[in-house]
């Protein structure tokens, strides 16, 4: 179980790296770096100069840097996909009597295969906002399944690392809600990102502050929900923190991680307005959000486990 748990943890971290890469592709504008899929400009290895382009492609469309950014994202995707598939095979062959191990592993593998295909729709839809948002949401669900799986494996070999605390039902429910709201909040964020891109095409000579102003309602909802999410996270954290002496180190770290991430997110959101949508901040805004989703889910599953065991 120990080596399986380590492998599952490694796969989870690799998936988080892939989510980071995906955000980077989006922010650097390389989403259509390769206009086709799965090949890039009709080649398995992207072209390195204009002569290698197929005749039907306008050289003005080709950008060496963007093509390779997108291509590295796809390669990372293939590697992570294989890791997840291997996790599922391992789970089925060694732990077939333990549905809490097998089911999330298989579900993650199936969703990952679907995600690979959905990636092709992202390209063929020319980055249609809803399609991009679905791509992101699927990634969050896959990584959540992997976190659940890793946590289950860890629990099986090391029960005492889990708390000796029975949390109130309200706390467990709240943690589950935080996970759900955070995913909705990220979906809203990716929709805003797409709206900004459309505005940038429509009003190419405006500044980003003007574009943000034009996003309107969606932007206000995202801001209000963000503030509520941070306040709610602190509230839940405080109500658990009373029992910190009876919590395991893992739990305490997860609580600290959750409120830290939530608070950082709020500051990053504010930075956007002050700093003109600095690209690097956009990448981390998205990535920290996905880490927040992970921390909320981890706490939820640990507390629920305690309840089920009692």
């Amino acid at each position, binding site marked *: 179980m120990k080596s399986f748990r380590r492998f599952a943890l490694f796969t989870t971290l690799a998936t988080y790296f892939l989510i*980071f890469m995906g955000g*980077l592709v989006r*922010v*650097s*504008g*390389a989403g259509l770096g390769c*206009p086709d899929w799965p090949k890039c400009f009709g080649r398995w290895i992207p072209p390195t100069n204009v002569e290698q382009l197929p005749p039907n492609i*306008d050289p*003005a*469309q080709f*950008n*060496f*840097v*963007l093509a390779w*950014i997108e291509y590295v994202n796809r390669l990372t995707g293939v590697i992570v996909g294989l890791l997840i598939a291997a996790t599922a095979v391992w789970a089925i062959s060694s732990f077939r009597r333990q549905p809490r191990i097998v089911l999330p592993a298989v579900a993650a593998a199936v969703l990952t295969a679907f995600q690979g295909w959905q990636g092709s729709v992202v390209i063929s839809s020319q980055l249609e906002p809803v399609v991009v948002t679905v791509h992101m949401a699927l990634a969050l669900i896959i990584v959540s399944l992997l976190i659940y799986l890793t946590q289950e494996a860890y629990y099986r070999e090391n029960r005492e690392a889990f708390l000796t605390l029975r949390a109130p039902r309200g706390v467990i429910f709240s943690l589950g809600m935080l996970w759900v709201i955070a995913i909705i909040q990220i979906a809203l964020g990716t929709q805003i990102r797409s709206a900004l891109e459309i505005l940038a*095409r*429509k*009003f*190419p*000579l405006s500044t980003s502050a003007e574009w943000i102003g034009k996003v309107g309602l969606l932007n206000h909802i995202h801001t209000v929900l963000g503030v509520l999410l941070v306040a709610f996270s602190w509230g839940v954290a405080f109500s658990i923190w009373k029992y910190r002496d009876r919590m395991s180190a893992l739990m305490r770290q997860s609580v600290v991680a959750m409120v830290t991430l939530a608070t950082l997110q709020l500051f990053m959101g504010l930075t956007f307005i002050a700093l003109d949508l600095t*690209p*690097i901040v956009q*990448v*981390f805004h998205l990535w920290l959000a996905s880490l927040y989703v992970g921390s909320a889910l981890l706490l939820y599953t640990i507390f629920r486990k305690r309840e089920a065991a009692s």
Partner: protein
Amino acid sequence: MKGNAAFRTLVLLAVIVILAGGAYFVIKQAQTSVSDLPVLGQLPDFEFTAQSGGMFGRREMRGKVNIVDFIFTRCKGPCPIMSGFMSELYQLYGGTDSVQFVSITVDPSYDSLKVLQAYAESHGVKDSRWVFLWAPIDSVVQLSEQGFMLAADDLPGSHTTKWVLVDKDANIRGYYSGTDEASIEVLKTHVARLVKEMK
């Protein structure tokens, strides 16, 4: 145990620094790659007649970002598509005087200034941001071949469908396919960059 925690914190910090550094590098590379618009050539001095009757040449192109194409009004093939796209861009950049459109006729024997005026009107031209230029055919061929480095054989029938992006110093900065929407999308990002450079 304490040393272990410190080590973990260090690893975490290192990972964040590496990710941030890597992302910063990638974004910078991507930004330079799309803003990298080398000077492909310098336009020679020329002076043609605009549809309004005034003179228009390299001097009038200076200080603005110019999008140039070659058309003729009787053309049934690519010209309606090109002028349609040009008209869309003309509307798109309606709020600024920094972007200017220049269409040069390759059929001067038919396209009199009157014909060009009517053509302009039919494409919704209301101000001097989009000019239609007339010159004797020899001058047009010379400007096309030696100035814009675009072939001009068998005019008007087989004229070029390329659009040319010319910056505020009358330097050629890019060529685009005037009949291909994807190519025009690229042009838009380049126009935005050149306009921001001017400010």
